């Protein structure tokens, strides 16, 4: 019994204090046996290893009309496996309407990051579920949509947390246009709010088979409507929202070539011999490429790591008629005979992104296991042996989900390609200043707008390197901060002669008395080191002075990643006021000091946006 053996090994490693090895085996156990029993075991062991790891904490509140207690260990075990330490507040059975409407309920006092509203068709629209012909369907549609509207509005009124709302599942009695109408209306209601998402519950059930999903015996006896073996699928569906909402999504997906992007081995089978076509065995690989293209279009960076002769592989990518992905879809490429962990490190350096934001896709279990051992911070996507399952695995993987699609995401690969041109331009100039001048940079600084809100929140979630305080905010939190008196949320957009970098910087400041404190100041790594940061700080200082502030100050809170920002305040004439275990507080006397905008940067304040 492999599982029993693994459990014993894990307990030995925990007792010996070898957390890294224990975590590796826990992940392996969970991959092998994602069951209720294993969940109980893994959750308790993960909890004992908490101190040794950097799990992202996330609080979730479950609003429900059925028994969910047995799902919680599955949910938490799955979350741990994605690097999230989930604490769960379980609402009272069938009490969700009161909990949502009452601002003093435990739902709100539990201060969730995300709430999930899991109500069922049979509770919300029993007449549709049971097929009662006595009630006009249009009356039911109106009643249910009115309820959803008032619950969601009340929730948004009382909380800035994310909200995931289950849609209604089809009724067994008869297919119902009324249920489709309700779900359509629900999507429209949710689209009107930030951070409110619809979970397509009918599609979830359909994926696993409507006939197999329910357990009517358990429903009538313990109000548990879902068969035991499917509880894990509900937990996994929730994770498709919770992973991106916790900021644990991958930014880069590194893919293998042979038997991953096409069938066969290009070095052996040749251009004519590999499988990649719209039908036959090559269809599975076109499906993989289509799934990857979709990720690319949603802003994921794709990169290649393949053990091959460079020329062979590039010939296939550029010349094979079945290729859906083209070389321009890849932000970085490593095709050589070296170790893949080395390739991933190089790609991380080239793209200037932390390797913990990488995911890895490879059909070869040996490569996957080697990579897991060498780079435990990389998310390795587990694949079954059958290539026809690959595309669905890619589509379903929680780390590859994107909930909010900002316009900047779509351009990102193009920007990285332009960045390569820029780096080469830098080498031909005599001085850095000459280079900066040649860039012809414009920094556009503007207060928060509804249009920039998603990207501003996303930057606070994702920026690790040039980030003075690394405070993570959701869209709701940012909106709430911007509305506070004395607080300002500004975004920074940069363009230069190579193109538009999009929205790349955020500053959050708070005026108190005659002191303006920088709560958040960050810059995407795409534009670090080009003196944009100086221009941004100069603007903050000038703007604070114009509001009669005498002091500008801010914390530097060190993390494992933000050393590029470490000397930022000192370099701009700030003095260290104090420090504690968490960081140092720096301040600048605005009456005596001035920060000048580098003469090679134009500052542009959009009209109508000045304060």
């Amino acid at each position, binding site marked *: 019994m492999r599982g029993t053996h693994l459990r014993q090994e894990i307990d030995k490693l925990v007792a010996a204090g070898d957390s890294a090895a224990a975590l590796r085996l826990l992940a392996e156990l969970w991959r092998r046996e994602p069951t209720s029993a294993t969940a109980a075991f893994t959750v308790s062991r993960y909890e004992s290893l908490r101190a040794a790891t950097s799990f992202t904490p996330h609080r979730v509140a479950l609003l429900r009309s059925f028994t969910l207690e047995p799902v919680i260990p599955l949910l938490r075990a799955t979350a741990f496996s994605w690097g999230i330490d989930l604490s769960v507040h379980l609402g009272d059975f069938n009490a969700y309407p009161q909990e949502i409407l009452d601002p003093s309920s435990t739902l709100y006092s539990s201060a969730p990051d995300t709430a999930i509203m899991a109500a069922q068709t049979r509770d919300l629209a029993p007449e549709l579920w049971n097929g009662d012909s006595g009630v006009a369907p249009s009356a039911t549609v109106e009643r249910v949509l009115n309820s959803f509207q008032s619950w969601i509005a009340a929730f948004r009124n009382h909380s800035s947390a994310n909200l995931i709302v289950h849609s209604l599942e089809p009724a067994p009695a008869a297919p119902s246009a009324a249920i489709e109408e309700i779900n359509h209306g629900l999507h429209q209601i949710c689209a009107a709010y930030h951070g409110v998402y619809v979970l397509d519950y009918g599609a979830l059930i359909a994926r696993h088979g409507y006939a197999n999903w329910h357990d009517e015996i358990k429903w009538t006896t313990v109000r548990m409507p879902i*068969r035991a073996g499917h509880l894990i699928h509900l937990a996994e569906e929730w994770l498709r929202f919770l992973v991106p909402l916790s900021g644990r999504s991958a930014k880069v997906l590194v893919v293998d070539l042979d038997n991953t992007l096409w069938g066969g081995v290009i070095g052996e089978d040749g251009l004519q011999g590999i499988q990649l076509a719209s039908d036959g065995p090559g269809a599975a690989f076109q499906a993989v490429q289509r799934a990857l293209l979709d990720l690319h279009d949603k802003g994921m960076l794709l990169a290649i790591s393949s053990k091959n002769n460079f020329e062979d592989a590039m010939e296939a990518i550029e010349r094979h008629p079945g290729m859906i992905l083209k070389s321009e879809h890849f932000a970085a490429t490593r095709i050589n005979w070296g170790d893949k962990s080395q390739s991933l490190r190089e790609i991380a350096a080239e793209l200037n992104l932390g390797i913990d934001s990488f995911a890895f896709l490879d059909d070869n279990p040996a490569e996957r296991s080697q990579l897991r051992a060498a780079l435990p911070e990389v998310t390795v996507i587990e694949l079954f042996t059958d290539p026809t399952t690959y595309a669905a695995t890619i589509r379903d993987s929680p780390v590859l989900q994107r909930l909010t699609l900002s316009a900047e995401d779509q351009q990102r690969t193009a920007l990285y390609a332009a960045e390569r041109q820029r780096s080469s331009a830098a080498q031909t100039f005599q001085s850095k200043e000459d280079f900066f001048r040649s860039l012809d940079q414009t920094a556009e600084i503007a207060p928060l707008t509804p249009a920039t809100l998603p990207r501003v929140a996303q930057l606070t979630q994702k920026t690790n390197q040039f980030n003075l305080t690394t405070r993570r905010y959701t869209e709701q939190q940012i909106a709430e901060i911007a509305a506070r008196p004395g607080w300002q949320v500004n975004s920074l957009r940069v363009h230069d002669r190579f193109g538009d970098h999009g929205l790349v910087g955020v500053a959050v400041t708070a005026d108190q008395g005659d002191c303006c404190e920088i709560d958040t100041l960050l810059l995407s790594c795409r534009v670090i080191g080009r003196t944009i940061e100086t221009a941004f700080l100069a603007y903050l200082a000038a703007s604070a002075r114009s509001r009669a502030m005498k002091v500008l100050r801010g914390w530097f809170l060190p993390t494992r990643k933000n050393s590029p920002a470490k000397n930022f305040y000192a370099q701009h004439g700030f003095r260290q006021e104090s420090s504690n275990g968490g960081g140092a507080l720096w301040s600048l006397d605005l009456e005596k000091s001035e920060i000048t905008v580098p003469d090679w940067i134009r500052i542009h304040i959009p009209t109508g946006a000045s304060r």
Partner: protein
Amino acid sequence: MTATVTQRVMSVASDIFGIPPSTLSAESGPENIQSWDSTQHLSFILALEEAFELQFSPEETETIKTVGDAIKLVEGKLPPAGG
């Protein structure tokens, strides 16, 4: 060699109730396992249904008072070994 039904039920009970397999016996139940409350009882039943891919009727669920009862019930519901 595959594990016996007894070993597998014991393993599920050990995971769900959070106690080492060596301390479990057929007589283990709510009387002598502190964590065996009604919520954990439901989790145990669901974990068994999941592990053995079967469904218990309400009457069968009620007969489970100890780990031994669970072993007996599962053995009775599984198709005979060896086909």
